[in-house]
């Protein structure tokens, strides 16, 4: 078997591959549904209904998609430069911590000033958190995959420590949770009575901003060059290490904005279950989007839909909601295979 490079396919063909990957995922998930003793058609019908069957469902899906857009963007930016940031989970929590620190009354400011300030400091916290592994990578050659992964565990312990210590809610009846944000620190809802909040708008704007950076700026060009071939980039005079550090700052900042948006927009306080693996799902989102920032929006909504739909489905059909996690993981693997097939021809002789 050999792989031979082939010319870039047309846009239509390129779009066909994610569709094929999703189709393959559905087929594999159907097998599991059959094993679970249910009918795949009715189960996926329920998933679809739960994800997009009503205005309420759709709003829930978009709400769930919001943090995924942020972590998806964080991963997409980092992976473009081949900076393997698997720590979006920790960076998201870093953002959440700063949001709570600044938003529970420490700064008595009007919302119009307070919210941007919180967002900026949240982003900075996430940026700093990823800067560490990035510095270790460029200075000492330490693989950032392992360091960012390990920091996820450190961070959740750190959050636990804060929630039982300095950030503990005195009225929380012993639950590890922080105080509620003050009213000025809450992101407004988009539609009254629904949970969808302005964090979603911020996510869309971030995606557009990242798209502009990647496509139109010298930094985006440098990041792509470093990702494809750092040696050639260095030869061309690009400051490879500096570019990687900048990438880390942007990536960590984006993931942390997800934490800000979740706390300020949805939850109102910080708990240990703020993120059910948004950081890891962000990897899937980014890959499904083929690292395209605008594609991240679509992919995040798709992945969120699977989670929201599967939750609704499992309540009625009795298939464990973990089917959603299985589908998301499978989609990741089928998608990387599909991306490879857009670039290479498999020859059997």
């Amino acid at each position, binding site marked *: 078997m050999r792989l*031979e*490079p082939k010319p870039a396919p047309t846009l239509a063909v390129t779009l066909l591959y994610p569709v094929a990957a999703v189709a393959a995922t559905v087929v594999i998930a159907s097998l599991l549904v059959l094993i679970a003793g249910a009918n795949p058609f009715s189960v996926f019908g329920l998933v679809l209904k739960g994800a997009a069957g009503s205005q309420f469902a759709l709003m829930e899906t978009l709400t769930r998609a919001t943090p995924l857009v942020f972590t998806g963007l964080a991963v997409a930016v980092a992976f473009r430069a081949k900076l393997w940031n698997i720590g979006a989970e920790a960076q998201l929590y870093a953002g959440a911590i700063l949001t709570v620190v600044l938003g529970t009354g420490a700064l008595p400011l009007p919302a119009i000033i307070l919210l941007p300030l919180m967002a900026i400091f949240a982003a900075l916290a996430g940026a700093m958190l990823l800067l560490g592994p990035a510095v270790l990578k460029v200075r000492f050659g330490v693989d950032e995959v392992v360091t960012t992964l390990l920091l996820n565990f450190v961070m959740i312990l750190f959050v636990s420590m804060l929630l039982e210590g300095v950030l503990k809610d005195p009225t929380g009846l012993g639950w590890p949770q922080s105080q509620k944000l003050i009213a000025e620190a809450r992101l407004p809802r988009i539609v009254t009575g629904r949970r969808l909040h302005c964090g979603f708008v911020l996510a869309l704007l971030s995606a557009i901003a990242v798209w502009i950076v990647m496509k139109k*700026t*010298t930094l985006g060009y440098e990041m792509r060059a470093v990702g*494809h071939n750092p*040696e*050639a980039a260095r*030869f061309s*005079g690009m400051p490879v290490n500096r570019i990687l550090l900048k990438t880390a700052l942007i990536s960590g900042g984006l993931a942390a904005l997800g934490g800000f948006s979740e706390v300020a927009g949805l939850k109102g306080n910080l708990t240990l279950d703020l993120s059910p693996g948004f950081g890891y799902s962000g990897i899937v989102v980014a890959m499904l989007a083929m690292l395209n920032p605008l594609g991240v929006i679509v992919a995040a909504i798709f992945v969120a839909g699977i989670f929201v739909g599967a939750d609704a489905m499992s309540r009625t059909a009795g298939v464990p909601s973990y089917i959603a996690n299985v589908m998301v993981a499978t989609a990741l693997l089928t998608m990387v295979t599909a991306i490879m097939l857009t670039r290479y021809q498999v020859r059997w*002789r």
Partner: protein
Amino acid sequence: MTVLRLSSITKRFGPLVANDAISLDLARGEVVALLGENGAGKTTLMNILFGHYVADEGTVEAFGKELPPGDPRAALDAGIGMVHQHFTLADNMTVLENIALGTEPLFAPRFRREAARQKIRKLSADFGLEVHPDSLVSALTVGERQRVEILKALYRDARILILDEPTAVLTPLETDALFATLRKLVAEGLSIIFISHKLNEVMAISDRVIVLRAGKVAGERRTADTDRKALAALMVGQDLVSPPVAPAVTGPALLVMEHVSTPRRGTGIALSDVTLSLHSGEITGVAGVSGNGQAALAGLLSGLETPQSGSMTVQGHGPDGWSPVAALEAGIARIPEDRHAVGAIADMSVMENVISERYRTPRFSKHGFMDWKAARNFAEEIIRDYDVKCPGPDARIRLLSGGNMQKLILGRALDPEPVIILANQPTRGLDVGAIAYVHGRLLEARARGAAVLLISEDLDEILTLADRIVVISGGRLSAPSARGERTVRELGELMAGHAEAAHAP
């Protein structure tokens, strides 16, 4: 007695026909040279013979039996041994382990080290292939590594030995030793296919020559009945005319190095106490066997390496904050040795590649935003001016041939009319047409007053182009000599590390 027969082998890679109905046979105790330019199809043919590739048509027969296609194991078992151009040795293992790899049943409970050691010792002694069986391969010189490759084949009792460009990495002295070994092997009844593009070596070692050109057999001659000139004509498809090189008009020194040493990096050879000046209107050739400090010298001019001691001035300025950007700003154009890994970003487009050294200039970006329109126009300009065959500015570089990729790199480097040009192995792996093109462009640059540093392992290339020649060996440079001042033999001695002082009065 025919030991090996290839019958009308055809191999296509997409639209390219690498081998077109090639037939070849080899007799016992015979040395057949397979001669041809780069890209003529020699290596592809041998990869088919050895089972790395599967031919689209044709068969391979060894000792009367047809080999199953695509099975290196079958080729090995049939007694075919191959010494690849790029050594296939694992650096983390010993000589013995490399040689014995794959010769015992994989799932044997232990591997018989002592028996292997005895056999290797004997083979070493019999054929003059001196190398210690328990040395780590990473500690060996290039010449020793090649001996290990030959031992690998002999250890498996190979009766047919294929050597792919075996002398490319050897000094003239090492080449002589290799030839002595090959003669011993032939005396033992082995048959040898010797792949080369060097005419004098082919004349020296072979009984018969088969010339390949553009994937076809261009001719076959008994070595005794032919000469270099005739073979060259067959190889190129026309009478060989050396390009006319006008005498140099030497101007002022543009780059001066005095007693420069560079820091050691890993196993690479650093420069030590190098003094060299590059003059306007002159091509300075650096001859030498690969791995003798060329990488450090090229790195220094490219800005990737900084002098540890000694001084370097570029047009009168010191190398403060020396970096690739500083080198570019000082007007140094760089043509890197490895165009795939360093010269180009294979998965980016032609447009994105041609601006990689100048994307920060106002021509291609303003306030941090790229001007892709300007980049596209520039790419189209380079494609047109440098005769690059490609679908357009958006084509991925990966899909370009070696020659076209090099033209693109040449265009990128030469377009800003640089005053100093570093050309490191600029024609390696290119076909005749592309080589002539590259040489022409370098001579053109010289004519408009540029100082060119040409690093090449191909002595013929140096002799043709260079106005002044220095030899690099062990990180040191010899004193320069003018065109024609030293004989090939003298240069060879210098390449082997024999200091000139010994001969001087």
